[in-house]
């Protein structure tokens, strides 16, 4: 926000020894965190860039050799990779954009009107689904969607046709699972955002005769647009890195029909022992994540 303190340690043009010492002393607490971040975060990112350009394998190889962009060229023509990209897009669009985001906003809006006990019950249930560990959520949704599971029991009870969901529509099942698990986050963000809209604005629109939908479109949504942006970015980033949920429910199967990019990456690197190729896929994922990070950073910029 404001400019630098003129006596700051590093950049001062002609630093006096005392000022340098004071600057170093002041900023020394930053050292442990910086060392950890460099070693275990920046290090792997750098190593990722290097590995992605080699043909490293998990076993049975004397030395890996540098293969340039071969891994990436291979990815572009690999039908399994393209399949994973498409499935990741479907998974993200269904569960993050459509599911978590819309349902979260709807729940937040309804919660403001609901009576107290209903608010408490709904909040507790939805948030519990969010707080449960990923693996437990995976187990629970597996039993829900399995052929002999609860969903089919409910459908049979209603005399509706049943299906082996994890076999016929695995990507839909894992998307629903991600909605179940992730909606609470959007709900909390939107609850906070809606609470921040001044009452007078909504009331005066109501007096002017604007109906519910028009109020939503012309007043509520524009006023919380920054929260919507932030929430979409964070949801998408979270969804892009979902692994455990899918792994416990379907292991990417049947075949490769729920194999999103993280699962594909794991499969290539460890099941097929192609560490170099798996890392190239990871790097692509990282770049996409970084782009989203930059966008969400822009949205949050005024905060720093």
């Amino acid at each position, binding site marked *: 926000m404001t400019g630098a303190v003129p006596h700051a340690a590093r*950049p001062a043009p002609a630093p006096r020894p005392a000022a340098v010492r004071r600057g170093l002393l002041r900023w020394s*607490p930053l050292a442990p*965190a910086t060392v950890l*971040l460099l070693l275990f975060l920046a290090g792997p990112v750098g190593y990722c860039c290097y590995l992605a350009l080699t043909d490293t394998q998990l076993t049975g190889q004397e030395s890996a050799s540098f293969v340039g962009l071969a891994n990436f060229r291979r990815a572009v023509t690999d039908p399994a990779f393209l399949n994973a990209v498409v499935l990741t897009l479907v998974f993200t669009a269904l569960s993050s954009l459509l599911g978590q985001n819309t349902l979260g906003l709807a729940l937040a809006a309804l919660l403001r009107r609901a009576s107290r006990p209903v608010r408490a019950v709904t909040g507790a249930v939805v*948030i519990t*689904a969010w707080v449960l560990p990923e693996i437990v959520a995976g187990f629970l949704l597996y039993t829900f969607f399995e052929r002999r599971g*609860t969903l089919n029991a409910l459908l049979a009870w209603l005399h509706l046709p049943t299906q082996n969901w994890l076999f016929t529509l695995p990507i839909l099942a894992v998307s629903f699972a991600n909605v179940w698990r992730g909606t609470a986050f959007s709900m909390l963000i939107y609850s906070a955002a809606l609470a921040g809209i001044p009452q007078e604005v909504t009331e005066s629109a109501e007096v002017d005769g604007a109906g519910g939908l028009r109020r939503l479109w012309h007043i509520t949504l524009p006023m919380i647009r920054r929260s919507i942006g932030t929430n979409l970015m964070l949801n998408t980033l979270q969804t892009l890195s979902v692994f455990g949920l899918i792994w416990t429910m379907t292991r990417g199967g049947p075949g490769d029909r729920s194999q999103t990019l993280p699962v594909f990456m794991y499969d290539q690197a460890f099941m097929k022992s192609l560490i170099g190729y798996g890392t190239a896929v990871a790097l692509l994922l990282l770049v996409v994540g970084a782009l989203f990070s930059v966008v969400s950073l822009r949205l949050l910029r005024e905060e720093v």
Partner: protein
Amino acid sequence: MPRRPSRATRHRLAADAALLVTAAAFAVPLAWLVLSSLDTGATLRVRLPDAPGVANFAAVLTDEITFTPMLNSLLLCGGATSLTMVCAALAAYPLSRFRARFSRPYLLTVLFSTCLPVTALMVPVYGLFVRVDLIDTMYGTALFLATAQLPFAIWLLKNFMDGVPRALEEAAWTDGASWAQTLLRIVLPLMGPGFGVVTVYTFIMMWGNFFVPFMLLLSPEQLPASVSIFTFFGNYQGIAFGELAAFSLLYSTPVLLLYLLISRRLGGGFALGGAVKG
């Protein structure tokens, strides 16, 4: 006079109905968890136990299934949380109190790395850990877990710290207190609730983390609960679903209780409050 309240009531009833339907849908898998854990003949679908009892819990409360993995989880996540919080508190202090040319870029980098998908990093981290011989070590895994949570913890703590007024500290400085004394004796106690929330949040995230220990720990006796539960039950072949439910419940209880603790403290909407303000 009679019109307005009736319309408001109608709106409220509609909202209540819609929410109850949603809550019921969300509650079905949770109902399976609770009911099956009490049912020795549990199947894949929700049903009331014929003879409810705690036999499933008795069956999983063994060293191999429950105690060792839970202890491992506690060591791993407790150690990593402590490391994260110490480093984050130290880093947040100068970032909150002083300004230099690099502090804004530093914060932006921290914020940027909070968003990076850690999942994508795990293949290279595995490769790196094999090279430097940290693979299959508890402390290596804890170091990585701690670092992965560090950016977010720094960011949240810095925001909480910004809310602590500087007047008291300046008095302490004039009395000759060092930065360490000021941080420990004045700033941290004043931001106690915020510090607690970030600690608990960090711990919850680590407790539920599956992929990191799944990749970095190999020997069965070192696995935390998040991974051991998967190795015991994950292939769904010939397992007792009641025991799966019972252990899932045991494994989830600590984080549910911890969440309850911090949500009450900050009125439910803590939702990463520092990070995602409107």
